[in-house]
């Protein structure tokens, strides 16, 4: 049985004297009836799929609508020139978020985390750590268990679907998962993990899902960047000892309430927000089947 709250995970960690990620691994073993090795292998395979999505990025590729493509490459070139405001590490985070989110829009293979539309956030923070900080595949997999555990609680208490809860449920959840994963990677405590996740989610509370022409492109691709960068800053906040004033589980509950109150035009219907702007309206979904 999956954890119903982040607090339950912390209590379980204490009872069993295991780190956050291991609590989630044990829960997966129990739920699916698999061995530790099988579960870990599946997580490592998932990580390989994330790595492959980044490595196989094609700068020339465009989405079917023509709205998306090439921005990851532009950002990479800009970073290589060494004049960024954010510095080289955050520059890589931004680049990776764009690359995976664009690959998704261009019908390439990605890992939904927790959704396809938010698939760039988690790899965006993990890949630079892997490449620059000499972190091992196993350590990344452990951080991914942490991320998955946070996402699982959000899915149980609120939602990870834009149609149900708006973009806060997709990019917000992905950002919370990524923030927790980073704290886990840096050896932070269980409490710090949950507070990093809470702060990341709080910062994106209320974000609406307003995709132009109903496609997972505008503004989804660039919102992966904000989710990733937000996760970096919230992980640093938590590691510095800063806490969310609202307890993490209550933040998740608030996200649900905000999602429930959100007008349906702002929940993946392509009818409100940016989708309803004159420029958004001017974009036609390619080759609609309506004749």
């Amino acid at each position, binding site marked *: 049985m999956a954890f119903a709250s982040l607090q339950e995970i912390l209590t379980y960690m204490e009872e069993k004297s295991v780190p956050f990620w291991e609590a989630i691994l044990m829960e997966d073993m129990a739920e699916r009836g698999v061995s530790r090795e099988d579960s870990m292998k599946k997580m490592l395979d*998932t990580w390989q*799929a994330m790595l492959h999505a980044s490595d196989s990025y094609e700068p020339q590729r465009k989405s079917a609508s023509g709205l998306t493509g090439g921005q990851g490459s532009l950002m990479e070139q800009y970073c290589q020139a060494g004049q960024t405001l954010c510095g080289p590490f955050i520059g890589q985070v931004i680049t990776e978020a764009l690359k995976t989110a664009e690959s998704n*829009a261009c019908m*390439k293979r990605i890992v939904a985390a927790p959704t*396809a539309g938010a698939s760039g956030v988690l790899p965006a923070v993990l890949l630079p750590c892997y490449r620059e900080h000499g972190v091992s595949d196993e350590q990344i997999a452990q951080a991914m268990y942490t991320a998955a555990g946070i996402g699982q609680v959000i899915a149980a208490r609120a939602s990870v679907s834009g*149609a149900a809860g708006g973009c806060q449920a997709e990019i917000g959840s992905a950002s919370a998962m990524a923030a927790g994963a980073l704290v886990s990677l840096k050896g932070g405590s269980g409490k710090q993990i949950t507070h990093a996740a809470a702060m990341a989610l709080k910062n994106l509370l209320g974000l609406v899902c307003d995709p132009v022409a109903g496609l997972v492109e505008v503004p989804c691709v660039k919102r992966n960047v904000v989710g990733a960068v937000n996760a970096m800053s919230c992980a640093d906040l938590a590691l510095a000892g800063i806490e969310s004033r609202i307890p993490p589980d209550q933040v998740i509950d608030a996200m649900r309430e905000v999602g429930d109150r959100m007008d349906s035009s702002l929940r993946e219907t392509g009818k409100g927000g940016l989708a309803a702007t004159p420029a958004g309206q001017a974009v036609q*979904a390619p080759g*609609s*089947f309506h004749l």
Partner: protein
Amino acid sequence: MNIFDILGPVMVGPSSSHTAGAVRIGYAARKLLQDKPVSAKIGLHGSFADTGTGHGTDRALVAGLLGMKPDDTRIPDSFQIAARQGLSFSFETVQLKEAHPNTAILTLRGESGRCLEIQAASIGGGRIMIRKLDGIEISFSLEKPTLIVNNEDKPGYVARVAALLSEEQINIASMQLYRNHKTGHAIMVLETDQRVSEAAVSALAGSEGILKAAYFNSEEV
């Protein structure tokens, strides 16, 4: 949700509902046809019709019909592959009553002449629900090993299927019965805890009064 529903599926983008779910619908339709499809008439309803091309829903459905799974990198090229493999297909917009916004209805013919009409919905996160089979309203998800039996609507068929599963030491997790008065046909949908062997399925399919028997292993896709 399991953690690999949170970190996963590994899939070809851009949308779990409009792309990955659509591949699964096509794949399930091929499995339920139990034949290599050679022609497919595909109706798209609701959001599938409105945003299907931009999300690759059309190519995803055809990819599934060709036997591809949601992480197959050939999905964007499925139309060309279909042409090479002798699958002809057409798309149209349909308006269905009380259907989920992400619904497709497929009319299929296989190379050995088998036919199937299937209506299915993509309900989020790549998960699907089969809503209609050969005109009979049904509802199942294919998330567990599932045996689908299409038989004449007469006494004794439930007992026969249950006896067969009992012989194979297979536990039935859930069972649903549906019927169509006009055609006199019924459908049984059984979710099982253990796998059903191919031999058992073909023995069932070959027996009197059973029109079709198909088995779907949930781990396949």
